[in-house]
């Protein structure tokens, strides 16, 4: 088993040493989302404006009169980082055109958690993608409203126990399946859509760099492990992300102009039980429940493989 996946062993030393998201932020011990933000910023570099939706990362990073951000950063509200981002992008574009700011490319990057992206911010995101703003949107998905105390979202997986979809005598936790957001965004004909995870840092950073270069909308769905909400050990954050990929419940892939590429291809998928049993939020599941989940994961994975094998780039279709 290649435990450090597909990157070169000494590659960390090649990474930008600059910390654009500084220490002193107040994220939980072992927060996967804080790590993912840190990695994203390294890949983006300094010519970036960050537009943050309300959520954990906003709360832990900018307690007035301090900020963890070494990049220009703006936060307005919960559901609107995509539309605030649209405004930033339009503003910078017009000011540059009019010669009022430096004539160089500054990328606008809107970020939000799964609540701010899958649920309350979906309309604003859809609008921004449809209008073709030169905007990268990165969703840091920790699969529930962690900021407000682990409530169920449209990104929460089937069977997870949350504070608003609790497991109990008559409930196995959330009874609906996770929304497939990457497909929803891809359906907007967005030229670059990718899934990523902080446990595969070079894959993630490469995707951020690729998306940054797109002139137009792009979207990255980044699985971000939340030890608090998932009820996992804080040192297991990286391992949990790896298991999500190795079991096939969160495959890493890209959709470039309609063409699907699987970035991490395990020889054989690990059983879902390996992933579920380490998480307190799934502790109540019976073998029968796990079987239901396994069946669905297999199906979704095969649907994805089918797209990877059969769908061509739009450029080859015209």
């Amino acid at each position, binding site marked *: 088993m290649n435990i450090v996946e597909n990157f070169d062993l000494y590659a*960390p030393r090649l990474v930008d040493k600059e910390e654009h998201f500084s220490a002193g932020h107040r994220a939980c011990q*072992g927060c996967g989302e804080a790590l993912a933000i840190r990695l994203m910023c390294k890949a983006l570099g300094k010519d970036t404006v960050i537009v943050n939706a309300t959520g954990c990362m906003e709360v832990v990073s*900018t307690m007035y009169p*301090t900020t963890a951000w070494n990049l220009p950063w703006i936060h307005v509200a919960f559901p609107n980082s995509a539309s605030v981002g649209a405004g930033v992008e339009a503003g910078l574009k017009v000011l540059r055109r009019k010669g009022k700011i430096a004539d160089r490319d500054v990328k606008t990057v809107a970020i939000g958690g799964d609540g701010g992206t899958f649920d309350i911010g979906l309309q604003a995101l859809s609008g921004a993608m449809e209008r073709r703003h030169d905007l990268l949107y990165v969703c840091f998905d920790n699969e529930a409203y962690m900021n407000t105390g682990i409530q169920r979202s449209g990104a929460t997986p089937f069977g997870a126990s949350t504070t608003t979809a609790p497991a109990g005598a008559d409930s196995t936790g959330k009874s609906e399946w996770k929304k497939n957001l990457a497909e929803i965004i891809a359906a907007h004909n967005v030229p670059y859509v990718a899934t990523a995870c902080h446990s595969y840092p070079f894959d993630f950073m490469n995707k951020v760099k690729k998306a940054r270069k797109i002139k137009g909308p792009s979207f990255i769905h980044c699985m971000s492990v939340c*030890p608090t909400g998932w009820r996992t050990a804080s040192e297991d*954050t*990286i*391992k949990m992300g790896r298991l999500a990929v190795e079991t096939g419940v969160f495959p890493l892939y890209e959709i470039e102009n309609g063409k699907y590429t699987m970035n991490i291809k395990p020889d054989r998928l690990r059983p879902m039980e390996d992933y579920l049993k380490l998480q307190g939020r799934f502790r109540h599941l019976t073998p029968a429940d796990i079987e239901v989940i396994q069946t669905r994961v297999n199906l979704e994975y095969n649907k994805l493989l089918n797209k990877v094998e059969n769908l061509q780039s739009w450029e080859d279709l015209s």
Partner: protein
Amino acid sequence: MEKAKKWPEDWQEIIPGCMVFRPGSAREYHTGSWRAQRPVYDNSKCIKCGMCYIFCPEGCISQDADGYFIADLDYCKGCGICAHECWPGAITMVEEG
């Protein structure tokens, strides 16, 4: 970086819009106090791969002059990711106190 008061005292001192013009000033707050365990490095096992640096959610691990890695205990929250991910097993988490 100019050291700021923890809070502006009077309302007149509030910066318009609660904007913050001191990038990275969150460093004034030392999250090291959250830590129950601290990472201890055995440099004889270290292969200088930098995985601990990459995977640190605090970004508080850096490389010294000899190329070995070290965690800034002012910020390290003691999550244990570095020890868990250290391939050759050079990092051990030990209880504080």
